[in-house]
Protein backbone atom coordinates (compact mmCIF):
# COMPACT_ATOMS: atom_id res chain seq x y z
CA UNK A 1 0.00 0.00 0.00
CA UNK A 2 1.50 3.33 -1.04
CA UNK A 3 0.93 6.69 0.61
CA UNK A 4 -1.98 7.65 -1.66
CA UNK A 5 -3.77 4.35 -1.11
CA UNK A 6 -3.25 4.74 2.63
CA UNK A 7 -4.58 8.32 2.55
CA UNK A 8 -7.63 7.46 0.44
CA UNK A 9 -8.33 4.27 2.38
CA UNK A 10 -7.54 3.68 6.07
CA UNK A 11 -6.66 7.30 6.93
CA UNK A 12 -9.88 8.69 5.46
CA UNK A 13 -11.90 5.85 6.99
CA UNK A 14 -10.60 6.43 10.51
CA UNK A 15 -11.03 10.20 10.11
CA UNK A 16 -14.62 9.72 8.94
CA UNK A 17 -15.47 7.46 11.91
CA UNK A 18 -13.98 9.98 14.35
CA UNK A 19 -15.72 12.89 12.63
CA UNK A 20 -19.11 11.19 12.74
CA UNK A 21 -18.79 9.84 16.29
CA UNK A 22 -17.21 13.05 17.64
CA UNK A 23 -19.73 15.41 16.03
CA UNK A 24 -22.73 13.41 17.22
CA UNK A 25 -21.19 13.07 20.67
CA UNK A 26 -20.83 16.85 21.00
CA UNK A 27 -24.20 17.61 19.43
CA UNK A 28 -26.17 15.10 21.52
CA UNK A 29 -24.20 16.00 24.66
CA UNK A 30 -25.13 19.66 24.28
CA UNK A 31 -28.73 19.14 23.20
CA UNK A 32 -29.48 16.86 26.15
CA UNK A 33 -28.12 19.25 28.77
CA UNK A 34 -30.71 20.51 31.19
CA UNK A 35 -31.83 24.09 30.70
CA UNK A 36 -31.04 26.46 33.53
CA UNK A 37 -34.06 27.07 35.77
CA UNK A 38 -35.58 30.42 34.87
CA UNK A 39 -37.48 32.10 37.70
CA UNK A 40 -38.35 35.33 35.90
CA UNK A 41 -41.30 36.21 33.71
CA UNK A 42 -40.33 36.21 30.02
CA UNK A 43 -40.36 39.71 28.50
CA UNK A 44 -41.18 38.31 25.07
CA UNK A 45 -41.98 34.86 23.85
CA UNK A 46 -38.69 33.23 22.88
CA UNK A 47 -39.72 31.48 19.68
CA UNK A 48 -37.86 30.23 16.66
CA UNK A 49 -38.19 33.63 14.97
CA UNK A 50 -36.03 35.16 17.70
CA UNK A 51 -33.42 32.50 17.01
CA UNK A 52 -33.52 33.12 13.25
CA UNK A 53 -33.31 36.88 13.78
CA UNK A 54 -30.08 36.62 15.77
CA UNK A 55 -28.65 34.07 13.38
CA UNK A 56 -29.08 36.76 10.73
CA UNK A 57 -28.15 39.91 12.68
CA UNK A 58 -24.99 38.36 14.17
CA UNK A 59 -23.76 37.77 10.66
CA UNK A 60 -22.91 41.47 10.58
CA UNK A 61 -21.20 43.80 13.00
CA UNK A 62 -23.42 45.82 15.30
CA UNK A 63 -23.35 49.53 14.42
CA UNK A 64 -21.16 50.68 17.37
CA UNK A 65 -18.50 48.07 16.59
CA UNK A 66 -18.62 48.33 12.83
CA UNK A 67 -15.43 50.33 12.49
CA UNK A 68 -13.46 48.33 15.03
CA UNK A 69 -14.46 44.94 13.65
CA UNK A 70 -14.51 45.74 9.95
CA UNK A 71 -11.03 44.33 9.19
CA UNK A 72 -11.27 40.96 10.99
CA UNK A 73 -14.86 40.53 9.85
CA UNK A 74 -13.89 41.08 6.21
CA UNK A 75 -10.96 38.71 6.50
CA UNK A 76 -13.13 36.07 8.18
CA UNK A 77 -15.74 36.40 5.44
CA UNK A 78 -13.13 36.03 2.70
CA UNK A 79 -11.73 32.97 4.44
CA UNK A 80 -15.12 31.35 4.98
CA UNK A 81 -16.38 32.09 1.45
CA UNK A 82 -13.11 30.73 0.08
CA UNK A 83 -13.43 27.67 2.30
CA UNK A 84 -16.99 27.04 1.17
CA UNK A 85 -16.18 27.49 -2.53
CA UNK A 86 -13.04 25.35 -2.42
CA UNK A 87 -14.70 22.54 -0.52
CA UNK A 88 -18.06 22.48 -2.27
CA UNK A 89 -17.55 24.06 -5.71
CA UNK A 90 -14.23 22.57 -6.88
CA UNK A 91 -15.29 19.88 -9.34
CA UNK A 92 -12.97 17.08 -8.13
CA UNK A 93 -14.28 17.76 -4.60
CA UNK A 94 -17.87 17.56 -5.87
CA UNK A 95 -16.95 14.17 -7.33
CA UNK A 96 -15.60 13.19 -3.93
CA UNK A 97 -18.94 14.06 -2.30
CA UNK A 98 -20.85 12.45 -5.14
CA UNK A 99 -18.97 9.23 -4.35
CA UNK A 100 -20.96 8.78 -1.14
CA UNK A 101 -23.92 11.16 -1.55
CA UNK A 102 -24.90 9.88 -4.97
CA UNK A 103 -25.67 13.27 -6.50
CA UNK A 104 -23.70 16.21 -7.85
CA UNK A 105 -24.02 19.95 -8.33
CA UNK A 106 -22.39 22.49 -10.66
CA UNK A 107 -18.84 23.62 -9.86
CA UNK A 108 -16.59 26.56 -10.70
CA UNK A 109 -13.59 26.65 -13.08
CA UNK A 110 -10.28 25.76 -11.46
CA UNK A 111 -8.90 29.28 -11.99
CA UNK A 112 -11.71 30.80 -9.88
CA UNK A 113 -11.20 28.14 -7.18
CA UNK A 114 -7.44 28.77 -7.25
CA UNK A 115 -8.02 32.51 -6.75
CA UNK A 116 -10.48 31.95 -3.88
CA UNK A 117 -8.15 29.45 -2.22
CA UNK A 118 -5.24 31.91 -2.35
CA UNK A 119 -7.51 34.65 -0.98
CA UNK A 120 -8.60 32.34 1.84
CA UNK A 121 -5.00 31.51 2.76
CA UNK A 122 -3.98 35.18 2.68
CA UNK A 123 -6.92 36.18 4.87
CA UNK A 124 -6.17 33.27 7.20
CA UNK A 125 -2.59 34.46 7.59
CA UNK A 126 -3.84 38.02 8.15
CA UNK A 127 -6.13 36.79 10.91
CA UNK A 128 -3.28 34.84 12.54
CA UNK A 129 -1.01 37.91 12.41
CA UNK A 130 -3.78 39.91 14.06
CA UNK A 131 -4.19 37.26 16.74
CA UNK A 132 -0.44 37.31 17.42
CA UNK A 133 -0.05 41.09 17.40
CA UNK A 134 -3.20 42.16 19.23
CA UNK A 135 -2.37 41.93 22.99
CA UNK A 136 -5.94 41.15 24.05
CA UNK A 137 -6.42 38.50 21.40
CA UNK A 138 -3.07 36.95 22.19
CA UNK A 139 -3.98 36.78 25.87
CA UNK A 140 -7.24 34.96 25.28
CA UNK A 141 -5.85 32.60 22.63
CA UNK A 142 -4.96 29.06 23.56
CA UNK A 143 -3.69 25.89 21.87
CA UNK A 144 -7.14 25.24 20.38
CA UNK A 145 -7.09 28.56 18.50
CA UNK A 146 -3.68 27.98 16.94
CA UNK A 147 -4.13 24.30 16.21
CA UNK A 148 -7.59 24.86 14.72
CA UNK A 149 -6.07 27.56 12.49
CA UNK A 150 -3.29 25.20 11.43
CA UNK A 151 -5.51 22.25 10.54
CA UNK A 152 -7.85 24.56 8.60
CA UNK A 153 -5.09 26.22 6.58
CA UNK A 154 -3.12 23.03 5.87
CA UNK A 155 -5.61 21.50 3.40
CA UNK A 156 -5.63 24.82 1.48
CA UNK A 157 -1.84 24.95 1.30
CA UNK A 158 -1.44 21.28 0.42
CA UNK A 159 -4.24 21.55 -2.15
CA UNK A 160 -2.67 24.62 -3.77
CA UNK A 161 0.65 22.78 -3.96
CA UNK A 162 -0.87 20.11 -6.22
CA UNK A 163 -1.02 22.20 -9.42
CA UNK A 164 2.18 24.07 -8.53
CA UNK A 165 4.00 20.74 -7.94
CA UNK A 166 7.46 22.21 -7.10
CA UNK A 167 9.23 19.03 -8.15
CA UNK A 168 7.13 16.76 -5.96
CA UNK A 169 5.10 14.01 -7.59
CA UNK A 170 1.36 14.55 -8.03
CA UNK A 171 0.30 11.43 -6.14
CA UNK A 172 2.53 12.34 -3.18
CA UNK A 173 1.02 15.82 -3.00
CA UNK A 174 -2.50 14.42 -3.38
CA UNK A 175 -1.81 11.95 -0.56
CA UNK A 176 -0.47 14.76 1.67
CA UNK A 177 -3.53 16.85 0.82
CA UNK A 178 -5.92 14.02 1.73
CA UNK A 179 -3.99 13.35 4.95
CA UNK A 180 -4.25 17.03 5.88
CA UNK A 181 -8.01 16.83 5.28
CA UNK A 182 -8.13 13.69 7.46
CA UNK A 183 -6.38 15.64 10.23
CA UNK A 184 -8.97 18.41 9.90
CA UNK A 185 -11.80 15.84 10.05
CA UNK A 186 -10.32 14.28 13.19
CA UNK A 187 -9.87 17.59 15.01
CA UNK A 188 -13.09 19.24 13.83
CA UNK A 189 -15.57 17.90 16.43
CA UNK A 190 -13.36 18.46 19.46
CA UNK A 191 -11.98 21.97 19.30
CA UNK A 192 -13.34 25.38 18.34
CA UNK A 193 -13.85 24.10 14.81
CA UNK A 194 -16.98 22.49 16.28
CA UNK A 195 -18.61 25.78 15.31
CA UNK A 196 -18.93 24.21 11.84
CA UNK A 197 -22.01 22.35 13.04
CA UNK A 198 -22.76 24.32 16.21
CA UNK A 199 -22.62 27.93 15.00
CA UNK A 200 -26.28 28.37 14.18
CA UNK A 201 -27.44 26.33 17.18
CA UNK A 202 -25.45 28.45 19.63
CA UNK A 203 -26.37 31.68 17.88
CA UNK A 204 -30.05 30.72 17.78
CA UNK A 205 -29.98 29.75 21.46
CA UNK A 206 -28.43 33.13 22.28
CA UNK A 207 -31.22 34.80 20.29
CA UNK A 208 -33.92 32.97 22.20
CA UNK A 209 -32.35 33.72 25.58
CA UNK A 210 -31.94 37.41 24.72
CA UNK A 211 -35.49 37.62 23.40
CA UNK A 212 -36.78 36.14 26.62
CA UNK A 213 -34.84 38.70 28.62
CA UNK A 214 -36.08 41.49 26.38
CA UNK A 215 -32.61 42.43 25.12
CA UNK A 216 -32.31 44.25 21.82
CA UNK A 217 -31.03 41.81 19.20
Amino acid at each position, binding site marked *: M*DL*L*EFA*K*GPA*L*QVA*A*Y*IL*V*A*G*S*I*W*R*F*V*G*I*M*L*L*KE*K*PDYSEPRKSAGILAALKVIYTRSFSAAPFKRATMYPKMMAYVMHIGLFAVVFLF*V*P*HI*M*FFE*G*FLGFEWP*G*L*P*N*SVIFFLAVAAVVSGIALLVRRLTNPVLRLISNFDDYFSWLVTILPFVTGLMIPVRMGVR*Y*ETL*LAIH*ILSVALLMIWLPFGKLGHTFLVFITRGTTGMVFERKGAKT
Partner: protein
Amino acid sequence: MKNRPTVGEILQAKGVSRRGFLKYCATTASILALPPSMIPRIAAAIENTRRPSVIWLSFQECTGCTESLTRSAAPTVEGLIFDAISLDYHHTLQAAAGEQAEAARHAAMEENDGGYLVLVDGSIPLGNPGFSTIAGISNVEMLKETVAGAAAVVAIGSCAAFGGIPGADPNPTGAVSVMDLVKDKPVINVPGCPPIPMVMTAVLTHFLTFGTIPDLDKHGRPMTFFGTTIHDRCYRRPFYEQGKFAKTFDDEGAKAGWCLFKLGCKGPTTYNACATTKWNSGTSFPIEAGHPCLGCSEPNFWDRGGFYEPLSTGHFGSGEKLAGAAVAGVALGVAAAAAGRRRQAKFTGEG
Protein backbone atom coordinates in the same frame (compact mmCIF):
# COMPACT_ATOMS: atom_id res chain seq x y z
CA MET B 1 29.43 -11.29 -32.77
CA LYS B 2 32.52 -9.96 -34.61
CA ASN B 3 31.29 -11.34 -37.96
CA ARG B 4 27.91 -9.71 -37.64
CA PRO B 5 27.15 -6.72 -39.86
CA THR B 6 26.84 -3.34 -38.23
CA VAL B 7 23.42 -1.79 -37.71
CA GLY B 8 24.29 0.82 -40.33
CA GLU B 9 25.07 -1.85 -42.90
CA ILE B 10 21.79 -3.60 -42.18
CA LEU B 11 19.77 -0.40 -42.47
CA GLN B 12 21.51 0.39 -45.77
CA ALA B 13 20.69 -3.07 -47.06
CA LYS B 14 17.05 -2.55 -46.02
CA GLY B 15 16.93 0.60 -48.14
CA VAL B 16 16.75 3.15 -45.34
CA SER B 17 18.00 6.47 -46.73
CA ARG B 18 20.61 8.56 -44.98
CA ARG B 19 17.98 11.25 -44.48
CA GLY B 20 15.52 8.77 -42.95
CA PHE B 21 18.21 7.39 -40.68
CA LEU B 22 19.29 10.83 -39.43
CA LYS B 23 15.65 11.75 -38.93
CA TYR B 24 15.29 8.74 -36.66
CA CYS B 25 18.46 9.74 -34.77
CA ALA B 26 17.15 13.30 -34.34
CA THR B 27 13.79 12.02 -33.09
CA THR B 28 15.51 9.65 -30.70
CA ALA B 29 17.74 12.46 -29.39
CA SER B 30 14.67 14.61 -28.95
CA ILE B 31 12.62 12.04 -27.04
CA LEU B 32 15.62 11.12 -24.93
CA ALA B 33 15.89 14.85 -24.07
CA LEU B 34 19.43 15.01 -25.46
CA PRO B 35 20.89 18.13 -27.10
CA PRO B 36 21.10 18.26 -30.95
CA SER B 37 24.88 17.94 -30.64
CA MET B 38 24.32 14.33 -29.59
CA ILE B 39 22.65 13.38 -32.91
CA PRO B 40 25.97 12.61 -34.69
CA ARG B 41 27.03 10.49 -31.72
CA ILE B 42 23.78 8.54 -31.82
CA ALA B 43 24.14 8.11 -35.60
CA ALA B 44 27.76 6.97 -35.28
CA ALA B 45 26.95 4.59 -32.45
CA ILE B 46 24.04 3.01 -34.26
CA GLU B 47 25.89 2.82 -37.57
CA ASN B 48 29.02 1.27 -36.17
CA THR B 49 27.57 -0.98 -33.52
CA ARG B 50 27.66 -4.66 -34.28
CA ARG B 51 24.24 -6.20 -34.05
CA PRO B 52 23.80 -6.65 -30.34
CA SER B 53 22.50 -10.02 -29.26
CA VAL B 54 19.11 -9.87 -27.60
CA ILE B 55 17.42 -12.71 -25.81
CA TRP B 56 13.72 -12.17 -25.28
CA LEU B 57 12.12 -14.25 -22.54
CA SER B 58 8.36 -14.49 -22.33
CA PHE B 59 6.96 -15.71 -19.04
CA GLN B 60 3.48 -15.21 -17.54
CA GLU B 61 2.19 -12.77 -20.16
CA CYS B 62 -0.45 -12.36 -22.84
CA THR B 63 1.94 -11.62 -25.73
CA GLY B 64 0.49 -8.12 -25.90
CA CYS B 65 3.95 -6.60 -25.51
CA THR B 66 5.23 -8.53 -28.53
CA GLU B 67 2.06 -7.62 -30.41
CA SER B 68 2.70 -3.98 -29.60
CA LEU B 69 6.10 -4.21 -31.26
CA THR B 70 5.11 -6.23 -34.26
CA ARG B 71 1.69 -4.76 -35.05
CA SER B 72 2.92 -1.38 -36.15
CA ALA B 73 0.83 -0.08 -39.04
CA ALA B 74 3.77 0.20 -41.41
CA PRO B 75 7.43 -0.72 -41.25
CA THR B 76 8.98 2.15 -39.36
CA VAL B 77 12.61 3.08 -38.99
CA GLU B 78 12.43 2.04 -35.36
CA GLY B 79 10.97 -1.26 -36.57
CA LEU B 80 13.98 -1.70 -38.77
CA ILE B 81 16.25 -0.90 -35.89
CA PHE B 82 14.58 -3.79 -34.17
CA ASP B 83 15.31 -5.90 -37.24
CA ALA B 84 18.86 -4.74 -36.83
CA ILE B 85 19.33 -6.18 -33.43
CA SER B 86 20.10 -9.85 -33.31
CA LEU B 87 17.01 -11.24 -31.71
CA ASP B 88 18.51 -14.62 -30.99
CA TYR B 89 15.69 -16.02 -28.92
CA HIS B 90 12.02 -15.12 -28.79
CA HIS B 91 9.78 -18.14 -28.56
CA THR B 92 6.80 -16.35 -30.09
CA LEU B 93 8.59 -14.97 -33.11
CA GLN B 94 11.35 -17.46 -33.82
CA ALA B 95 10.90 -20.25 -36.33
CA ALA B 96 12.82 -22.76 -34.25
CA ALA B 97 11.02 -24.70 -31.56
CA GLY B 98 11.81 -27.11 -28.77
CA GLU B 99 15.44 -28.17 -28.39
CA GLN B 100 16.54 -26.14 -31.41
CA ALA B 101 15.18 -22.97 -29.83
CA GLU B 102 16.87 -23.68 -26.52
CA ALA B 103 20.11 -24.44 -28.37
CA ALA B 104 19.86 -21.00 -30.01
CA ARG B 105 19.49 -19.37 -26.60
CA HIS B 106 22.49 -21.21 -25.20
CA ALA B 107 24.57 -20.40 -28.28
CA ALA B 108 23.72 -16.70 -28.00
CA MET B 109 24.62 -16.71 -24.32
CA GLU B 110 27.97 -18.38 -24.95
CA GLU B 111 28.94 -16.26 -27.96
CA ASN B 112 28.05 -12.97 -26.34
CA ASP B 113 28.83 -13.71 -22.73
CA GLY B 114 28.72 -10.51 -20.69
CA GLY B 115 27.48 -8.40 -23.61
CA TYR B 116 23.99 -9.46 -24.55
CA LEU B 117 20.72 -7.89 -23.51
CA VAL B 118 17.89 -9.80 -21.92
CA LEU B 119 14.39 -8.52 -22.57
CA VAL B 120 11.70 -10.04 -20.42
CA ASP B 121 7.96 -9.80 -20.77
CA GLY B 122 5.68 -11.45 -18.25
CA SER B 123 5.95 -12.04 -14.54
CA ILE B 124 7.68 -14.97 -12.86
CA PRO B 125 5.60 -17.38 -10.74
CA LEU B 126 7.26 -18.49 -7.53
CA GLY B 127 4.25 -20.31 -6.08
CA ASN B 128 5.03 -23.46 -8.00
CA PRO B 129 7.75 -23.90 -10.66
CA GLY B 130 5.27 -25.87 -12.74
CA PHE B 131 2.87 -22.96 -13.16
CA SER B 132 4.82 -21.68 -16.16
CA THR B 133 7.57 -23.55 -17.98
CA ILE B 134 9.37 -23.33 -21.31
CA ALA B 135 10.94 -26.49 -22.65
CA GLY B 136 10.43 -27.99 -19.23
CA ILE B 137 12.43 -25.23 -17.56
CA SER B 138 10.68 -23.10 -14.95
CA ASN B 139 10.54 -19.35 -15.58
CA VAL B 140 12.62 -18.50 -12.53
CA GLU B 141 15.31 -20.99 -13.48
CA MET B 142 15.46 -19.76 -17.08
CA LEU B 143 15.64 -16.13 -15.96
CA LYS B 144 18.50 -16.75 -13.53
CA GLU B 145 20.43 -18.84 -16.06
CA THR B 146 19.99 -16.33 -18.89
CA VAL B 147 20.62 -13.19 -16.88
CA ALA B 148 23.89 -14.53 -15.45
CA GLY B 149 25.93 -13.46 -18.51
CA ALA B 150 23.84 -10.46 -19.56
CA ALA B 151 24.99 -6.86 -19.75
CA ALA B 152 21.60 -5.57 -18.69
CA VAL B 153 17.98 -6.63 -18.39
CA VAL B 154 15.00 -4.76 -19.77
CA ALA B 155 11.65 -5.64 -18.21
CA ILE B 156 9.13 -5.07 -20.99
CA GLY B 157 5.56 -4.45 -19.91
CA SER B 158 3.93 -4.10 -16.52
CA CYS B 159 3.96 -7.85 -15.78
CA ALA B 160 7.74 -8.05 -16.05
CA ALA B 161 8.27 -4.67 -14.42
CA PHE B 162 5.84 -4.95 -11.50
CA GLY B 163 4.07 -8.33 -11.58
CA GLY B 164 1.15 -6.91 -13.58
CA ILE B 165 -2.12 -8.76 -13.92
CA PRO B 166 -0.72 -12.18 -12.88
CA GLY B 167 0.52 -10.51 -9.70
CA ALA B 168 -2.85 -8.86 -8.99
CA ASP B 169 -4.71 -9.77 -5.82
CA PRO B 170 -4.94 -12.66 -4.85
CA ASN B 171 -1.83 -13.42 -6.94
CA PRO B 172 -2.59 -17.14 -7.28
CA THR B 173 0.76 -18.03 -8.83
CA GLY B 174 2.93 -16.00 -6.47
CA ALA B 175 4.00 -13.84 -9.42
CA VAL B 176 6.93 -11.47 -8.96
CA SER B 177 8.66 -8.93 -11.19
CA VAL B 178 12.09 -9.15 -12.79
CA MET B 179 13.57 -6.62 -10.36
CA ASP B 180 12.35 -8.76 -7.47
CA LEU B 181 14.69 -11.51 -8.66
CA VAL B 182 17.54 -9.79 -10.50
CA LYS B 183 19.69 -7.84 -8.08
CA ASP B 184 23.17 -8.02 -9.60
CA LYS B 185 22.47 -6.62 -13.10
CA PRO B 186 21.08 -3.30 -14.24
CA VAL B 187 17.31 -3.63 -14.72
CA ILE B 188 15.41 -1.11 -16.83
CA ASN B 189 11.65 -1.21 -16.44
CA VAL B 190 9.60 -0.28 -19.51
CA PRO B 191 6.10 -0.81 -18.10
CA GLY B 192 2.80 -0.42 -19.86
CA CYS B 193 0.08 -2.81 -20.83
CA PRO B 194 1.56 -2.93 -23.41
CA PRO B 195 4.47 -0.46 -23.52
CA ILE B 196 4.86 2.05 -26.33
CA PRO B 197 7.05 0.57 -29.13
CA MET B 198 9.02 3.79 -29.54
CA VAL B 199 9.88 3.74 -25.84
CA MET B 200 11.26 0.22 -26.12
CA THR B 201 13.40 1.07 -29.16
CA ALA B 202 14.60 4.34 -27.66
CA VAL B 203 15.76 2.56 -24.51
CA LEU B 204 17.70 0.10 -26.66
CA THR B 205 19.12 2.96 -28.73
CA HIS B 206 20.30 4.67 -25.57
CA PHE B 207 22.05 1.50 -24.52
CA LEU B 208 23.65 1.09 -27.96
CA THR B 209 24.75 4.74 -28.08
CA PHE B 210 26.15 5.24 -24.62
CA GLY B 211 26.64 1.71 -23.36
CA THR B 212 24.88 2.78 -20.19
CA ILE B 213 21.34 2.66 -18.93
CA PRO B 214 19.32 5.89 -18.97
CA ASP B 215 18.39 7.83 -15.83
CA LEU B 216 15.68 5.92 -14.02
CA ASP B 217 12.93 6.97 -11.64
CA LYS B 218 12.14 5.32 -8.30
CA HIS B 219 10.34 2.49 -10.12
CA GLY B 220 13.30 1.83 -12.42
CA ARG B 221 11.65 3.50 -15.43
CA PRO B 222 13.56 5.78 -17.84
CA MET B 223 12.92 9.35 -16.69
CA THR B 224 12.77 10.54 -20.29
CA PHE B 225 9.51 8.71 -20.89
CA PHE B 226 8.19 8.27 -17.39
CA GLY B 227 9.20 11.63 -15.93
CA THR B 228 5.87 13.43 -16.35
CA THR B 229 2.27 12.39 -15.91
CA ILE B 230 -0.11 11.78 -18.78
CA HIS B 231 -2.35 14.45 -17.22
CA ASP B 232 0.44 17.04 -17.51
CA ARG B 233 0.79 16.43 -21.26
CA CYS B 234 -2.85 15.62 -22.05
CA TYR B 235 -4.52 17.65 -24.76
CA ARG B 236 -7.76 17.48 -22.70
CA ARG B 237 -6.07 19.20 -19.73
CA PRO B 238 -7.62 22.63 -20.49
CA PHE B 239 -11.07 21.08 -19.97
CA TYR B 240 -9.96 19.82 -16.56
CA GLU B 241 -8.91 23.36 -15.66
CA GLN B 242 -12.26 24.72 -16.87
CA GLY B 243 -14.15 22.14 -14.82
CA LYS B 244 -15.62 20.53 -17.96
CA PHE B 245 -15.94 16.77 -17.61
CA ALA B 246 -17.59 13.97 -19.57
CA LYS B 247 -19.99 12.26 -17.19
CA THR B 248 -20.81 9.23 -19.31
CA PHE B 249 -19.24 7.71 -22.39
CA ASP B 250 -21.95 9.03 -24.68
CA ASP B 251 -22.99 12.38 -23.24
CA GLU B 252 -22.41 15.79 -24.80
CA GLY B 253 -19.20 16.23 -22.80
CA ALA B 254 -17.79 12.99 -24.19
CA LYS B 255 -18.72 14.05 -27.72
CA ALA B 256 -17.11 17.45 -27.16
CA GLY B 257 -13.89 15.75 -26.00
CA TRP B 258 -13.99 17.03 -22.42
CA CYS B 259 -11.79 15.73 -19.63
CA LEU B 260 -12.31 12.08 -18.61
CA PHE B 261 -11.33 12.56 -14.94
CA LYS B 262 -14.90 11.87 -13.80
CA LEU B 263 -14.93 8.61 -15.77
CA GLY B 264 -11.98 7.40 -13.74
CA CYS B 265 -9.02 8.65 -15.77
CA LYS B 266 -5.79 7.83 -13.94
CA GLY B 267 -3.74 10.27 -16.06
CA PRO B 268 -2.87 12.50 -13.07
CA THR B 269 -1.12 9.64 -11.26
CA THR B 270 0.28 7.81 -14.29
CA TYR B 271 3.79 8.45 -15.57
CA ASN B 272 4.16 7.55 -19.23
CA ALA B 273 4.71 9.09 -22.66
CA CYS B 274 1.34 8.08 -24.16
CA ALA B 275 0.11 11.67 -24.52
CA THR B 276 3.22 12.75 -26.46
CA THR B 277 4.63 9.69 -28.23
CA LYS B 278 1.19 8.14 -28.79
CA TRP B 279 0.44 4.84 -30.48
CA ASN B 280 0.09 3.38 -33.96
CA SER B 281 2.66 5.64 -35.56
CA GLY B 282 1.56 8.67 -33.54
CA THR B 283 -2.12 8.27 -34.39
CA SER B 284 -3.65 8.53 -30.94
CA PHE B 285 -3.65 7.18 -27.41
CA PRO B 286 -6.44 5.81 -25.17
CA ILE B 287 -7.64 9.21 -23.92
CA GLU B 288 -7.75 10.53 -27.48
CA ALA B 289 -9.89 7.52 -28.37
CA GLY B 290 -12.33 8.52 -25.63
CA HIS B 291 -11.35 6.12 -22.89
CA PRO B 292 -9.86 7.11 -19.53
CA CYS B 293 -6.28 6.12 -18.78
CA LEU B 294 -6.16 2.95 -16.68
CA GLY B 295 -2.75 3.81 -15.25
CA CYS B 296 -1.27 0.62 -16.72
CA SER B 297 2.36 1.73 -16.38
CA GLU B 298 2.07 2.15 -12.61
CA PRO B 299 2.83 -0.58 -10.07
CA ASN B 300 -0.24 -2.60 -8.98
CA PHE B 301 -2.50 -0.76 -11.42
CA TRP B 302 -4.98 -3.63 -11.37
CA ASP B 303 -5.56 -3.35 -7.63
CA ARG B 304 -5.78 0.43 -7.29
CA GLY B 305 -9.55 0.77 -7.04
CA GLY B 306 -12.11 0.80 -9.85
CA PHE B 307 -11.00 1.77 -13.35
CA TYR B 308 -14.07 3.98 -13.73
CA GLU B 309 -13.91 5.46 -10.22
CA PRO B 310 -12.65 9.08 -10.16
CA LEU B 311 -9.28 9.57 -8.49
CA SER B 312 -10.94 11.96 -6.04
CA THR B 313 -13.14 9.19 -4.64
CA GLY B 314 -12.48 8.48 -0.99
CA HIS B 315 -12.99 5.13 0.63
CA PHE B 316 -14.90 5.53 3.85
CA GLY B 317 -15.36 1.88 4.56
CA SER B 318 -18.73 0.24 4.94
CA GLY B 319 -21.94 2.08 5.74
CA GLU B 320 -22.38 -0.25 8.70
CA LYS B 321 -19.13 0.95 10.25
CA LEU B 322 -20.12 4.59 9.76
CA ALA B 323 -23.51 3.82 11.33
CA GLY B 324 -21.61 2.14 14.18
CA ALA B 325 -19.57 5.32 14.64
CA ALA B 326 -22.82 7.33 14.73
CA VAL B 327 -24.31 5.01 17.37
CA ALA B 328 -21.10 5.29 19.40
CA GLY B 329 -21.40 9.08 19.11
CA VAL B 330 -24.99 9.01 20.39
CA ALA B 331 -23.97 6.79 23.31
CA LEU B 332 -21.06 9.07 24.18
CA GLY B 333 -23.30 12.12 23.87
CA VAL B 334 -25.95 10.65 26.18
CA ALA B 335 -23.27 9.71 28.71
CA ALA B 336 -21.71 13.18 28.50
CA ALA B 337 -25.11 14.84 28.92
CA ALA B 338 -25.93 12.64 31.90
CA ALA B 339 -22.62 13.59 33.52
CA GLY B 340 -23.33 17.25 32.69
CA ARG B 341 -26.80 17.06 34.24
CA ARG B 342 -25.35 15.55 37.42
CA ARG B 343 -22.86 18.41 37.62
CA GLN B 344 -25.63 20.94 36.98
CA ALA B 345 -27.73 19.40 39.74
CA LYS B 346 -24.78 19.54 42.11
CA PHE B 347 -24.26 23.26 41.47
CA THR B 348 -27.91 24.26 41.58
CA GLY B 349 -28.64 22.03 44.55
CA GLU B 350 -31.47 20.33 42.69
CA GLY B 351 -31.87 16.65 42.93
